[in-house]
């Protein structure tokens, strides 16, 4: 697969043209919502002339279409933002552009990043890079597929409960969700403030570390960013690794369990210790997630009112304008989550749902804290199943939500987690294993994954 090092500034125009051409040839996957061709070629010419330089000079990439970025509308895969042209760019995009990277397009997602298959896009689903009958995963499905199809060496995504890691595992690429607060979210369409993170897809652990290193850092425009801490690590000493028992039960596909065991064996062979550990609260984490996140969504999506930007419905009164605009502009899953959020935040239900979930979240953090006193890294599968068929789960929201059961725990606790490609099953579908670290251990996870590429 292509790596960042395969690109040179001297050939920026040719490389960007080739990536655009390849993207067009793969249109049937519907991984992109738009190409930013004109701007990309202009920037490529400036890279060749030496006007733009940097660590990523001339390297093409795509952004998930919930990053404000120039060159095409930022839609969040929704009707309400269908023709929204961003007046500024996200900090993460600005930082990559400052190093010479060239955005060639905007990748498909579940509308407002609500979903785990990219089937909730208002503009149609993305197809899996390995099997077009199957889902890309989500919500950053388009970014994962563009990387897996070898069109770009890296892509940006957001991960609120697994939206980078799950599609990374479904398509056989690396997917990094950093410690909460590592990368600025300024200029990123907000979903759930207490778990939203910005991360990336890449074809090697080194490339993921390079991209995270460039994007990471304190931003005065995002007060939740942590003081700078991310420094890529080149080697890894023997680690104590815990294999999470509850993520290896019979609900998890057998071939995925085998692949995870094989990865554990490889870790042992490389000199690490791997022991079975227990995270008993794991089975409750999806329930916490589907209270806390919809609550934050219902509040965040209140801003889409048809007044200052975005789609506005025809209406005689203000109340009708809000109601119709939002009905037309959101997909069903957006409405479901907004309404669940309104419910759990309502007086009379607040304590039993929202407050109970936030208390349960404390218990989860405590269980993690205890495990990380004795272990450096936790290991488990990224998903309970490989990529499912298009349409297979669309009528059953809970079945769809269960695809995130392995990824939401790290999100709720703010921990860094990396999905690492771990081979394919008997049908050729990719399998991913997940490495989880304590807060700020992002670079260690990437260094560990890199060391396993060699072994």
């Amino acid at each position, binding site marked *: 697969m292509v790596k960042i090092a395969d690109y040179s500034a001297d050939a920026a125009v040719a490389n960007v043209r080739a990536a655009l051409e390849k993207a067009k040839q793969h249109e049937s996957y519907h991984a992109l919502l738009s190409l930013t061709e004109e701007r990309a070629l202009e920037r490529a010419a400036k890279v060749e002339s030496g006007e733009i330089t940097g660590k990523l000079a001339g390297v093409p990439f795509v952004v998930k279409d919930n990053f404000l970025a120039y060159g095409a509308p930022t839609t969040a895969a929704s009707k309400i933002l269908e023709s929204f042209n961003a007046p500024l760019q996200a900090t993460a995009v600005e930082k990559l552009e400052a190093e010479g990277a060239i955005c060639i397009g905007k990748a498909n997602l579940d509308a407002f990043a609500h979903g785990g298959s990219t089937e909730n896009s208002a503009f149609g689903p993305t197809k899996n890079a390995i099997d077009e009958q199957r889902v890309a995963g989500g919500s950053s499905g388009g970014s994962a597929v563009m990387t897996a199809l070898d069109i770009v060496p890296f892509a940006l995504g957001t991960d609120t409960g697994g939206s980078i890691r799950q599609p990374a595992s479904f398509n056989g690429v690396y997917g990094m969700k950093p410690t909460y607060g590592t990368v600025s979210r300024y200029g990123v369409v907000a979903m759930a403030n207490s778990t939203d993170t910005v991360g990336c897809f890449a074809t090697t652990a080194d490339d993921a570390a390079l991209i995270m290193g460039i994007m990471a850092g304190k931003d005065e425009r995002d007060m939740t960013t942590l003081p700078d801490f991310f420094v890529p690590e080149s080697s890894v000493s023997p680690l104590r690794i815990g294999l999470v028992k509850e993520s290896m039960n019979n609900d998890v596909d057998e071939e995925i369990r085998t692949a995870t065991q094989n990865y554990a064996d490889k870790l042992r062979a490389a000199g690490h210790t791997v022991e079975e550990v227990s995270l008993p609260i794991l089975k409750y984490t999806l329930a916490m997630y589907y209270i806390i996140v919809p609550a934050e969504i219902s509040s965040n999506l209140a801003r889409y*009112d048809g007044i*200052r*930007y*975005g789609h506005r419905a025809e209406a005689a009164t203000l109340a009708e304008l809000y*109601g119709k605009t939002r009905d037309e502009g959101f997909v069903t899953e957006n409405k479901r989550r907004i309404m669940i959020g309104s419910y759990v935040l309502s007086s009379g239900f607040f304590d039993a749902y929202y407050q109970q979930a936030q208390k349960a979240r404390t*218990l989860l953090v405590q269980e993690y804290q205890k495990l990380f006193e004795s272990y450096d890294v936790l290991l488990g599968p990224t998903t309970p199943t490989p990529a499912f068929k298009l349409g297979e789960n669309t009528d059953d929201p809970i079945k769809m939500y269960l695809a995130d059961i392995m990824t939401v725990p790290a999100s709720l606790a703010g921990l860094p987690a990396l999905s690492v490609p771990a081979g394919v099953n008997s049908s050729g579908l990719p399998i991913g294993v997940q490495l989880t670290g304590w807060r700020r251990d992002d670079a260690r996870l990437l260094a560990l994954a890199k060391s396993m590429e060699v072994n």
Partner: protein
Amino acid sequence: MTQISRDDVLHLAQLSSLQLTDNEIDTLRTDIANILGYVEQLGELDTVGVEPTYQVTDLENVWRTDEVIDDEVSREELLALAPASANNSVKVPKVL
């Protein structure tokens, strides 16, 4: 199991500023009841005396000096994003 009536759905829609079409109401009613039924398992956890976690990285209020950060975005650019504008203002339907 939580029972959600058609009126409950309409009330939630109103709280959420969503004017639902008729065919959406029944589907959402079933989905919302199922999702609430699923998340209610949290009631099994003993959380007496446990403090809630709203924020995970222990950041307290973060202050900065109250100075305008220049994003170089002009008034014209922002107004151009509005579905309707007039006289340097965003235009809305008559409220009163």
